[in-house]
């Protein structure tokens, strides 16, 4: 099996807090995995480790076949990779933030074109043309010249997805992409992600949208207190959870 993500024995501490406690997971190429769990369970931290926005303290985490952010030194310990190598690894990993983090001084088109121009050294004209196509793909062809502050939350998040796609990533990571949105805008963003899933994009999504998980995920991973509690197809984990903690969590989010 071709793996996009493979992690074993991952530990991470924030000071005294053991946020990731012996986590192991695999995500196959083409698979869509949704991470669920109560806040503070470590799911966002785990996602951020996948493109080295957070460091891990122990274990091995491979993304796209690379030990992400690290190399193993002669003593068999993890040593942080050079900044250049980390940047190179991140080019193939798209990340979508809860609060969009669009660049406010750039238009939607420029937001999308920035990384291809600066990192891939794509010619500016080409990058802007590609950018317009991507914005059309997320349904924003009429907002190309808008600045982020002129866009609604849902529109901003769709620009952010287009921006991540512009680097033609092999893997897309979503950190609660709809949590900061007004309820009426959640649908338009989920629809874009659903579309990506249909196109075969490998994705790991941290989400509280159980309906979305049910419809899109190949697999759901339930986390609690830094552990993976259970994992399986959405039908099983969400409808017939094997663990008490999953049941307790689901009864709260599903009312």
């Amino acid at each position, binding site marked *: 099996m071709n793996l996009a993500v493979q992690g074993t024995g991952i530990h991470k501490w924030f000071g005294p807090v053991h946020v990731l406690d012996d986590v192991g997971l695999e995500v196959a190429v083409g698979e869509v995995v949704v991470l669920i769990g109560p806040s503070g369970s470590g799911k966002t931290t785990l996602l951020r480790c996948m*493109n080295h*926005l957070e460091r891990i303290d122990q274990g091995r985490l491979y993304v796209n076949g690379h030990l992400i952010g690290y190399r193993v030194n002669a003593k068999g310990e993890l040593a942080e990779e050079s*900044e*250049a190598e980390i*940047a*190179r690894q*991140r*080019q193939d*990993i*798209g*990340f979508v*933030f809860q*609060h969009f*983090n*669009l*660049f*406010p*001084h750039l238009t939607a088109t420029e937001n999308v074109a*920035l*990384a291809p121009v*600066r*990192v891939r050294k794509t010619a500016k004209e080409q990058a802007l043309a590609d950018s317009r196509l991507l914005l059309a793909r997320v349904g924003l062809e009429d907002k190309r010249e808008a*600045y982020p*502050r002129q866009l609604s939350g849902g529109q901003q998040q769709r620009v*952010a997805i287009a*921006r*991540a796609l512009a*680097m033609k990533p092999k893997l897309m990571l979503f950190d609660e992409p709809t949590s900061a949105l007004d309820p009426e805008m959640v649908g338009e963003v989920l629809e874009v992600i659903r579309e990506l899933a249909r196109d075969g994009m490998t994705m790991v999504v941290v989400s509280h949208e159980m309906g979305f998980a049910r419809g899109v995920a190949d697999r759901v991973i339930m986390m609690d207190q830094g552990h993976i509690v259970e994992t399986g197809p959405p039908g099983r984990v969400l409808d017939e959870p094997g663990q008490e903690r999953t049941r307790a969590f689901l009864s709260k989010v599903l009312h």
Partner: protein
Amino acid sequence: MHFDWSFFQHLLFHPPGSFVQGAIRTVYLAIIAQALGVVLGLLLALWRRSRHAVPRAFASGYIWLIRGTPLLVQAVIIYDGSSAMGLYSFRTLSLGPVSVPGVVQAGIVTLALNEGAYMAEIMRAAIDSVDKGQAEAAESLGLRRRQAMRHVVLPQAMRVVIPPLGNEFNNMLKVTSLLSVIGLQELFLAAQDYNSTTFRTFEIFLVVAIYYIAMTTVWSFIQSAIERRLRARGGEVLATVTLRQRLFGGGGLVPGDLLRGAR
């Protein structure tokens, strides 16, 4: 002694050549020193954030030294002191058709070195005011840290810098007068020389005050125009300071307030 109205009016509207020369010098000293100060301030701010200890220590030490000593003392050390010690003597420099006297070079260097330390603090606050998620988003796309700083963080920080930068320049226009201590013939020293032959101290320095306020007022208008344009172009990031507040106070004229208001 009575107030000599005709002397005052004549001086105000028909100033001697030395006044005009001095005023021009004041303006260009301020512009060049401010520009160099901005560049130095940016470098110092970046060094302060460096991952390496040496640039960090250098920047901190530099800012500590400059901000802890009077500009007057710095000017005397840089111009007279270094020459007396045989370290460096500023000599007239010919740049094509213009020749720059040594004392003017020393003046520019002093003001720029001094201003750099203050600009560094402003730049640092401005960089810190940019949300951390911005650099994170840029780096998640594969930009190097340096590229993220240059293309994403700094352009946003610069908008925050503009208002306090304008106030620094206003100050710079006036601070040039301190360079009279090393014998730089700017507006203030020109006036002092004139005073020593006429002794109409009150009238002369009233005229000088009017010249300075004319310069800073013109600058206030320019600064307001720049900020209005920036606001129009897409920054809700700028605090609104009306021209009235700028001239008479009551707005967020303190750099710290501007930075806070901007976020």
